[in-house]
């Protein structure tokens, strides 16, 4: 089973996770810029974080045979803090980078005026940089929040096929698929979505424009939920090709719209970096 996790926060995960993910079939992933749990109080700490999403984390992932891409944005929670707003002005510098395959995570947390502005501005940035957008839907008041998100997406003028709305559930999936946007599902140990519910949603709505992710982060979460969903699909009678579509071809098609998803054709050889494989560098484990 080859797996592309389209939404996972590896900065919060250990090397044991990377090893387990490789063993489970994960060969590529996208790490969206998000909230770190501890609020940031200055724009500079965002820039160091963005740099690590472009530098250290892909380097770390490559040592375990996993190709790492990222999305960059000011997340909705921190868009409410005026001290963080200057980040919006610096985003174009990051959206020009090769491994940035979308603008994200953007969207609503508490549906404030500030979040409205940050969402609209960042959708415009996606249009200007010809990038897809990864839009998170709020955990509270999800149905109304998803509806409002779709309105803002429509008003922005971005093509719906360039947008994924994430963290969907049984009540929000139809309106998102009907809008032409992609539907993202975060399969979590307790909250959000389970493997079995995910299988039922695919049975009912099909697998077109559906992305399944673990959204694993610093909270209680499981980086192997993608594989577990694939196994649940097989157990429910889906063909292996359908599982491959959901867990590999769909995320490749969505992020491929960036024109920057430069996936290595050979997936099974762990290597530190394409430039280091020259003369066969060895795999290393980081610090001294």
């Amino acid at each position, binding site marked *: 089973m080859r797996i592309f996790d389209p939404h996972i926060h590896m900065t919060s995960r250990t090397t044991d996770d990377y090893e387990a993910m490789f063993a489970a079939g994960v060969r590529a992933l996208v790490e969206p810029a998000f909230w770190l749990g501890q609020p940031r109080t200055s724009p500079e700490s965002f820039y160091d974080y963005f740099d690590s999403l*472009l530098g250290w984390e892909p380097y770390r992932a490559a040592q375990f045979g996993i190709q790492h891409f990222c999305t960059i944005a000011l997340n909705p929670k921190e868009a409410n803090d005026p001290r963080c707003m200057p980040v919006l002005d610096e985003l174009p510098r990051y959206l020009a980078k090769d491994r940035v395959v979308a603008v994200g995570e953007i969207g609503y947390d508490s549906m404030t005026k500030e979040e409205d502005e940050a969402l609209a501005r960042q959708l415009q940035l996606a249009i200007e940089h010809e990038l897809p957008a990864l839009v998170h839907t709020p955990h509270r008041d999800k149905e109304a929040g998803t509806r409002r998100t779709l309105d803002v997406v429509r008003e922005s003028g971005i093509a719906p096929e360039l947008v994924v709305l994430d963290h969907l559930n049984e009540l929000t999936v139809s309106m998102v698929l009907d809008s032409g946007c992609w539907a993202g599902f975060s399969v979590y140990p307790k909250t959000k979505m389970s493997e079995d519910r995910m299988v039922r949603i695919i049975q009912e709505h099909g697998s077109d424009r559906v992305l399944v992710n673990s959204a694993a982060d610093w909270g209680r979460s499981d980086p192997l939920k993608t594989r577990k969903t694939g196994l649940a699909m097989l157990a429910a009678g889906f063909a292996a090709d359908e599982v491959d579509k959901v867990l590999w071809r769909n995320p490749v098609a969505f992020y491929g719209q960036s024109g920057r998803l430069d996936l290595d054709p050979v997936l099974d050889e762990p290597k530190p970096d394409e430039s280091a494989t020259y*003369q066969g560098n060895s795999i290393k484990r980081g610090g001294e």
Partner: protein
Amino acid sequence: MISGIPELRTVLEPEARAWLDTAVDRIIADPTAIGALFPAVRRRCGRARIDGHWTIDEAARAVLLTALPLHDPALTETVGALHRHGDPAEQRAVLRALPLIDDEGRFLFLVRETLRGNDTTLIEAALGPYAARHLPDDEYRQAVLKCVFYEIPLSRVAGLDERADAELARMLADFARERIAAGRAVPEDITPVIRAFAPADDRPAALDGAS
């Protein structure tokens, strides 16, 4: 074309070549244009390897850097900002291009910053002819030792033949003793330096038995 950068005309597709020519003209007319052009190089020109030293994107970025019509302090500021805001591929290109844009060691701060990090692809790019020429002895020795720790082959470190000395040989011999005591393998490429400089009675005995 500036010496040291491989001949790109033969390896670039016509479209990429035209893009690079236009980029150079724009930078000559307005050096601030490099800010948007530099990150786009890999997508426009490719990233295949040309030879043991350069990839296409690194060489093309070196072409842009050498086109900058700037002198200090503007040159140091512009190149420093490209490095500060660069992803690892951009940073490797800046590091490899340093000997082409400066012969006074003004950019040693970039080499030093890289050597504090852990990314072996960047460390290797930092230890080219520029570092070999400008790094002070003690820092050069520490850099070589770091490469040994990080399993970067010493054949990729510039200037080792000229800069290896008795102190470096002592450090490497001590490292070898530590490894032997721990029952771990000693990288073979450190023995020539130890043999050339360390007195025979101050060499780890196990090394003399080896090849």
